[in-house]
């Protein structure tokens, strides 16, 4: 069969379809990349090039001033540190809560399983909205603490259901024999289920990581102390509020190139993602495939 297909002459239609397919995809990829390229270029160009008219995809001259200024800006490092703490806490808390929810729900014989499932799924449709949630988070004393960024979003119900579906697809037999040997559910969960669920747990862990790395709104409304600000928030300040980093003002650099600095700031927060992304990309996709295939 495959031999036959290989030998088959390419028809006009094949050429036509291929031309359209490859042209479109190359164009799309280029269009996706160009804005990023521009940021890279501007971030490493000297002031006189950036402030003159014209689009440059490749830097004409190199100048690391923007990076120098951004890296000297204390708040960036505070943001980095807070984001890393937040990501680690977020992954630990979310994974624990989601596993604790997913495992019992994956058991067909759980008492009132339907009720408990709906109890959780219901919240995907109805929420109190911004203000009541804000007041609760404040009310339980999480305001201005990193826990406000971690606890209220501990369980993403959709993601939890994906984990649960994965648990449900695991064979019962080993668990049953462990149960007969006297193992309780905590032991079964930690010794049997979790080790064989590493693919899905890794995927979900990556999603959680990306979420906490990028999330800024909760940080904006719940954190008042700038010492606690996360990276994205610091970035927002630099990008949108037009306020130049104080470090620069203090250094009295009148010719400070804000645009170069802004782009350098973008790059500083993008680089970690760009470095790991090509290696991790396929794991990001896995969970979505598992989640959508079941439909």
């Amino acid at each position, binding site marked *: 069969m495959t031999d036959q297909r290989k030998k088959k002459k390419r*028809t006009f*239609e094949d050429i036509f*379809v*291929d031309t*359209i*397919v*490859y042209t479109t*995809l190359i164009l799309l*990829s280029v269009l*996706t*990349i*160009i804005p*990023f390229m*521009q940021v890279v270029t*501007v971030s490493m160009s000297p002031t006189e090039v950036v402030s003159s*008219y*014209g*689009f*440059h995809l490749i830097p004409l001259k190199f100048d690391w001033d923007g990076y120098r200024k951004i890296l000297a800006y204390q708040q960036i490092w505070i943001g980095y540190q807070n984001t890393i703490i937040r990501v680690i806490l977020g992954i630990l808390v979310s994974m624990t809560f989601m596993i*604790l929810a997913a495992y*019992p729900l994956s058991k067909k*014989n759980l*008492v*009132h*399983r*339907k009720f*408990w*499932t*709906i109890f*959780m799924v219901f*919240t*995907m449709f*109805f*929420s*109190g*909205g911004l*203000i*009541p*949630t*804000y*007041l*609760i988070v404040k009310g339980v004393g999480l305001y201005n603490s990193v826990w406000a960024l971690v606890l209220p979003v*501990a*369980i993403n*119900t*959709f993601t939890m*259901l994906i984990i649960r579906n994965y648990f449900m697809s695991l064979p019962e037999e080993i668990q049953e024999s462990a149960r007969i040997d006297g193992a309780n559910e*905590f032991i079964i969960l930690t010794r049997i289920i979790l080790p064989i669920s590493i693919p899905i747990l890794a995927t979900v862990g990556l999603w959680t990581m990306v979420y906490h790395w*990028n999330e800024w709104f909760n940080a904006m409304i719940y954190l008042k102390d700038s010492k606690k600000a996360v990276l*994205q928030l610091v970035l927002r300040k630099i*990008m*949108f509020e037009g306020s130049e980093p104080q470090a620069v003002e203090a250094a009295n650099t009148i010719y400070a190139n804000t645009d170069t600095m*802004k782009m350098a700031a*973008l790059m500083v927060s993008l680089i970690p993602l760009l470095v790991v992304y*090509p290696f991790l*990309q396929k794991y*990001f996709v896995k969970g*979505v*495939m598992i989640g959508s295939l079941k*439909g």
Partner: protein
Amino acid sequence: MESNALIAAREMKEHVQPQVNKERAIKLYWKQKYFFFMLIPVIAYYLIFHYAPLYGIVIAFQNYYPLKGVSGSEWVGLEHFKELFTGLYFLPVLKNTLIISTYKLIFGFPAPIILCLILNEVRLVFFKKAVQTITYLPHFISWVILGGIVIEFLSPTRGLINAIIMEFGHKPILFVTDEAYFRSILVLSSIWKEVGWSTIIYLAAITSVDPELYDAADMDGAGRLRKIWSITMPSIMPVVTIMFIFAVGGIINDDFDQIYNLLNASVLSVGDVISTYTYQIGLVKGDYSFATTVGLFKNIIAFILILLTNYVAKKTNDYSLW
């Protein structure tokens, strides 16, 4: 993500359990105590962070005053709702939300389907992987960063589009601050961010197609276009229908992250949407009650849309919520 609703829909109708009487239930609960030890923190989480805010909605019917709390604040009935419909600001904001969401639906919904059909025609595995890697990338980047990138890309002095415009001897356009372009920027940039990632669900649907169908079509002399039309398209149609129904159901939801990071004072009249307005009224101006009313109004519309969605889904598909 629309597939949230999909999963939820499936959950709601699954597994009806036989009735258990009280005594047996207690015994069963004791037998499964470990499961419930696990569930206790989970249930507490849902009660505190999801159900308590639901109760908090009552402040929409009060003049909520933080120091007095819910029990001490004055009840005002539907006053805030009257304010909502007679006030100067809410209706334009609602209109903006609906217009922007509709544009996103019209242009953003078909985009990943078309991309998926195109991707599926690629036989060079490395090329397909490369395109996917590239087009998935923006999905993982926050709108804080992407907003900055979009603004830079559309810059009147350095942006590619303005460079082209100037090449033809026209004046550069201040895209981001121009009311005429703002909504297009929202729609296009959201497609740019999500089109690649959104193909995954359709590509997953295609993987379940029996390859023999294509072979049989080959035998019958079907060309590439014919196979796309008669095999690939029908195979993703069920997923397309469901995704479309849920996309329509979600039309009242705007993308706060995106809009807030691109919004500026000059385009407020066309770009201020329910979520940005709620944030402004509630957390910037501190009018908790009115902001909650706005949120509640949105939730009610969303609920009606879910009912409608469910009705349509039931008529056309297996999927229904109840």
